[in-house]
């Protein structure tokens, strides 16, 4: 995987989490700016998936390929689900949902890094 991109995604997702947790702290529902933050993270994740697919197609493969692909797919669906549920709940708890979704992303990315670095050969 690309370490720089992974680090960038972790930073962006943590920033997005902080931004979505502001309305949670202020007892407000999320607004467009928070969904936009989620969208930015999702975009970065999409870029990562493209790079990963290119690398996989180029013959570079982690030993646990199935697990890696599972995480890759998982990384793309967490934010849409979190964003949808978060926007539907018009209380501070919607913001908590969106914030938690953002916090799941760095965990997934770090796990993907670990799995990728287990590459044989």
């Amino acid at each position: 995987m690309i370490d720089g991109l992974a680090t960038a995604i972790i930073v962006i997702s943590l920033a997005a989490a902080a931004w979505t947790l502001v309305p949670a702290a202020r007892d407000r529902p999320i607004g467009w700016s928070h969904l936009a933050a989620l969208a930015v993270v999702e975009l970065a994740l999409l870029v990562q998936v493209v790079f990963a697919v290119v690398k996989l197609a180029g013959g570079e493969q982690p030993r646990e390929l199935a697990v890696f692909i599972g995480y890759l797919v998982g990384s793309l669906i967490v934010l849409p689900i979190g964003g949808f549920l978060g926007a539907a709940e018009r209380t501070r708890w919607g913001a908590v949902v969106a914030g938690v979704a953002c916090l799941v992303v760095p965990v997934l990315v770090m796990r993907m890094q670990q799995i990728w670095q287990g590459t044989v050969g």
Partner: protein
Amino acid sequence: MAERARASRAISAGPGRALVFVYAVFTLAAGARSGVQIATRFDEAPLAYLLSALAAVIYLVATAALARDARRVAVAACAVELAGVLTVGTLSLADSAAFPDATVWSDYGAGYGFVPLVLPIIGLLWLRRTASATVGP
């Protein structure tokens, strides 16, 4: 606390929505993990992998029950989940040979930041809170 006054009757609303989301994430995580384990190397640790699958099913039931306000099912799922994480957590520490590969519940869910241990407790507390909200003033 301010939230208490606004506590909704529905278990899927408010904080319940956040709970549903976290449960959904764990359904996905446990389900994907056990799916891969069972499909690729079931003979290595059948017990651990079957427990992974069981955990995934329980998370799925809990997610659905919380989302659809099925209180009794949700209580049962959270209770089974708590019993599961405590049992598997203890067994995985006491008899690590039986658990050569990790499940969501191994070591009390340490691999998942102990969320698997905390989640059913929060779930049961939330269910109790909403139960009293429907009856109380």
